[in-house]
């Protein structure tokens, strides 16, 4: 199977090409093509995963194949440029590919029901296939450049999918926002890998870790910090870490299955995957690791606090994703890629399920405001129960998957000696349980608040939910039994064991959150409106997400467009102004320079000659022995 691994990304690409060029007209064939492509990838990635475990392929000795893509030979002291396109199979990429393909398969099946009757039906499945291809390319890449290539493609696909319903102005705006915010991250990433290449002479992951391992890189600590910080800008944007998180909540404008795949297996997971993949580099700089850990911690906390007050079901889930990504980034920052990737895997399943559940609800009641729902548990039993399982997993209740991975995170943070971050993370665990059960008690229980005729969704949509629920329950325990810690690790293998004290504390916090939500939103022991009134300033601050979007909008509208306007004015008007002013002065003083009354042509000439005079003065004076030296 291993030698077939290169086909994993190729199948969805073929599916995309076929749909776009041939089968677009027929909806059923397009679906079949997309499904066939992703299922083929799924089968191979299962094969690859099994073989990786059987053959005992480790992180240190991966399976790697590459072809030359670009070759520029080095000449004397000038570095050449050598770029490969290759595949790298180790436990990290094998597990990740399984997660991506399985979730993509389920989401595509679900989408058949969800997108039913949409005019862009075939186009949707084409984009989904392209999305899967880009993500798989990123995962299977054996060097930073190839990864960047997939990375950018993922960005492009997210643009297409978030703006899928481009008739809605808000969707178009959200797509632009996601794309442009991500470009800022890519900016750092690209600069980082170019610097990396120039210092190490290679993009290849294996070679870089060998060079660093030998301690013979000869690259200064400051440069390494610079490189790793620049590269971290990529995950900051793609995994939506504070302060580049603004695009993710808005990205909810896309169809719900898109949000689901975006949040669970592709896009946002890419950032965490990069951190794990390039960890050898980040590990070289204590400053960078510290920065990563704190950015993650801050994101986890503020996103959870935003989620406390949201009314839109998808936005609550979006902020919850942000918060969980913060966890993963934080724990990689404290030095455990095992915990980070473990949580990424379990989170992928239950978050995907939560989003699909939300989609099922939205499909039924045609609103996203949880206060307009209520009493859904009787009408939609499957959706409700899978949703509750997902929420319990997210809250980290024993023995669901989230419990195991969250515990790993807390344990790793505690063991690394970050006591402050540990308590922050524990508090976030409590907040998570609270906002999830706030959502459940309001939307699924209680009385109907508006007149909706909810009904259970079609099997296309409920079957994937049930399969995902299975994973949400068992994947945590299963992975611990499989010995995940001795497969995906950096440095020394990590044997997952439960620290009773930490497990107990986090469970107390989670249960506390659930009970509090039950008391407030089910038993209604306090009046929520009154609370809102009393804590108005805090509520407003959270509701408006600390006004970060507004600050960016201001920066963008006023500063960037302002600079653009200013440059434009300079280019077109200022010279006119100077010339006119000059002309006026001249006219007033004597009137002998009539020709200075200008049309624009003269101005252009003035600029040309003026510039030449200034440059000559600046440059020739030193040679002539003048003042400037």
């Amino acid at each position, binding site marked *: 199977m291993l030698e077939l691994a290169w086909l994993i990304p190729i199948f969805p690409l073929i599916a995309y090409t076929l749909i776009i060029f041939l089968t677009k007209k027929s909806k059923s064939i397009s679906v079949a093509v997309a499904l066939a492509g992703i299922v083929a990838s799924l089968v191979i990635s299962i094969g690859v995963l099994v073989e990786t475990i059987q053959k005992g392929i480790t992180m240190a000795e991966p399976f790697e194949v590459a072809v*030359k*893509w*670009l*070759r*520029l*030979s080095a*000449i*004397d002291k*000038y*570095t*050449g*440029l050598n770029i490969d396109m290759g595949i790298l199979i180790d436990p990290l990429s094998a597990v990740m590919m399984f997660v991506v393909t399985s979730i993509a398969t389920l989401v595509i099946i679900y989408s058949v029901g969800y997108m039913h009757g949409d005019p862009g039906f075939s186009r949707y499945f084409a984009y989904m296939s392209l999305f899967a291809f880009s993500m798989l390319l990123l995962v299977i890449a054996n060097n930073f450049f190839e990864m*960047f*290539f997939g990375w*950018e*493609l993922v960005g*492009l696909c997210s643009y297409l999918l978030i*703006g899928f319903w*481009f*008739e809605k*102005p808000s969707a*178009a705006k959200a797509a*632009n926002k996601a*794309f*442009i915010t991500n*470009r*800022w991250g*890519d*900016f750092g990433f*690209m*600069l980082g890998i*170019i*610097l990396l*290449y*120039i210092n190490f002479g290679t993009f290849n992951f294996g070679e870089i870790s060998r060079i660093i391992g030998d301690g013979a890189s000869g690259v200064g600590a400051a440069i390494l910090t610079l490189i790793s910080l620049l590269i971290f800008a990529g995950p900051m944007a793609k995994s939506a870490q504070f302060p580049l998180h603004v695009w993710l909540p808005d990205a909810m404008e896309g169809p719900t299955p898109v949000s689901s795949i975006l949040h669970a297996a592709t896009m946002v997971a890419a950032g965490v995957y990069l951190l794990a993949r390039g960890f050898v580099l980040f590990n070289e700089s204590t400053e960078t690791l510290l920065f990563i850990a704190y950015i993650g911690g801050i994101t986890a906390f503020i996103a959870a606090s935003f989620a406390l007050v949201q009314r839109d079901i998808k936005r609550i889930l979006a902020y919850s994703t942000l918060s969980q990504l913060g966890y993963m980034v934080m724990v990689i920052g404290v030095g455990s890629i095992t915990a980070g990737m473990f949580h990424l895997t379990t989170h992928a399943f239950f978050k995907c399920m939560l989003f699909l559940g939300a989609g099922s609800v939205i499909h039924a009641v045609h609103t996203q405001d949880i206060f307009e729902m209520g009493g859904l548990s009787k009408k939609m039993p499957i959706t409700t129960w899978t949703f509750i399982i997902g929420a319990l997993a997210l809250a980290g209740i024993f023995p669901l998957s989230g419990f195991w991975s969250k515990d790993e995170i807390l344990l790793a943070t505690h063991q690394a000696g970050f006591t402050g971050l540990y308590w922050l993370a524990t508090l976030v665990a409590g907040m998570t349980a609270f906002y999830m059960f706030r959502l459940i008690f309001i939307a699924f229980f209680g009385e109907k608040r508006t007149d909706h005729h909810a009904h259970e969704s079609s099997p296309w949509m409920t079957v994937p939910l049930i399969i995902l629920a299975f994973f949400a329950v068992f994947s945590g325990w299963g992975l611990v039994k499989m010995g995940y810690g001795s497969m995906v690790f950096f440095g020394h293998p990590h044997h997952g064991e439960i620290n009773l004290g930490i497990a107990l504390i986090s469970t107390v916090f989670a249960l506390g959150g659930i009970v509090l939500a039950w008391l407030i939103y089910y038993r209604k022991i306090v009046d929520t409106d009154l609370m809102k009134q009393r804590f108005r300033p805090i509520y407003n601050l959270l509701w408006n997400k600390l006004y970060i979007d507004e600050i960016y909008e201001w920066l963008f509208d006023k500063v*960037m*467009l302002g*600079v*653009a*306007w200013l*440059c*434009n004015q300079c*280019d077109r008007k200022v*010279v006119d102004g100077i010339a006119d002013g000059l002309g006026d002065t001249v006219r007033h003083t004597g009137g002998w320079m009539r020709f200075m009354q200008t049309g*624009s*042509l003269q*101005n*252009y*000439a003035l*600029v*040309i*000659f003026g*510039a*030449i005079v200034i*440059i*000559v003065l600046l*440059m*020739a004076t030193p*040679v*002539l022995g003048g003042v400037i030296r």
Partner: protein
Amino acid sequence: MNLSLLTLEIVVATLALFIFILGLVAPANQKRGIGYFTVLSLVVSLIIAIILHGESGTAFGTMYVVDPFSSYFKIAFLIAAVLVTMFSISYVNKLGYNQGEFFALTVLALLGMMIMSSAADFITFYLGLEMMTIPFIILTAFRYGDKASSEAGMKYMLLSAMSSAVLLYGLSILYGAAGSTLYSDVINVITGDNIDALTVIGLVFLLAGFGFKISMVPFHMWSPDIYQGAPTPVTAFLAIGSKAAALAAMIRMFMIALPETREVWMTLVIVLCAMTIVLGNFVAIPQTNIKRMLAYSSIAHAGYLLMGLVAFTNLGISAILYYVMIYVFANAGAFACVNEFGNMTGSDEIKDYTGMWKRSPLIASVMLLCLLSLGGIPPLAGFVGKFYLFTAIIDQGYIWLAFLGIGMSMVSVYYYLIVVKVMFLGKPVEETSVPVSLGAKTVMFVSAVASLFLGLYPAPLTDIATKVAQLFFPM
């Protein structure tokens, strides 16, 4: 002297003269054929150029050089000329007069470019420059009934004359300092340790002249006005061919004749390069006319191209060569779209592109590919090109310049996306579809495929570029 070295130039010159005559003798209802004939013969010339690309030697003493570098650029000019004439057929046909002149002048300008890329002597270079510029002036004012076109022609003529004066002045000063106009002599006389004020002034004048042609800030001001006013095919050829030719001549002159004076001109080039990138990208944002927007975008690209010269390495020059080629395709595609739309509606305003996806999916998708390529987004060729250039300058330690370049290319995505957004997301004002002529379709197809292919599999072209660039940095 081996005249066979000049085969390509002779073919093209004969062609230009022949088209002039053809324009006079062809019956009125057959004039359309002139365009087809031009395209066909240019394709033949392109094939000849590709066959002959391995040749090298000197002609007219050492005034005229044929080498892989000049051949590479000649092929680029020919590709540009083929693409531009292909989509200008419908334009000129609609214009309805002087078809022969239009195509003959285009071919003459092409000849000028070829001479520029081969010139190894100040006077020969100047000859090529004027041979390219004068046809362009006439072509710019070709719609003489149209005020904008006439005004653009007038402006271009006067400003070109001024810039030529500056350039010629610079050349004569350098001649004064070196005592020869031949590059091979100049390099021996003007060396690093005898730089005097005269040389400095000469170099500044020279750079100003080149700066005008490649629209480098602050000598760029003519280009938005003239790009907007000129007939669209002429704008396209001006943006692609004229810029590439000036760049080719500039590289040869600075690398062969004046490398010793590098410390003098390098600082200036770096500063102006940075200014060009910043100003071009920022001012492109508020533009409402698509030709003006592309003009500023082409100013910004001049800045990116200069980065390769700043690097002054094999990598830098090969990056320029690669970038020039993809720039040709991306711009030809974009201008072909602008031309077809302008032909039908008479408008170049970005707001009129609203809902293009519904009116002409072909124009919308080709425009999308070309703009994304210009913006440097993978998997399109522009991405590889920018990566190549940035690597080249970071390699030489100009991290701040790369930082600026990458940052500004993020900004550029913004204004390209404005057009994309309007085309794909807006509701069309009119529902009528936009017809696309066969020539333009071909151009669009070729440019889109090339932009994709060179991005997905750049190795063949980069191999060639590296080999060509070795000319300046022999192993």
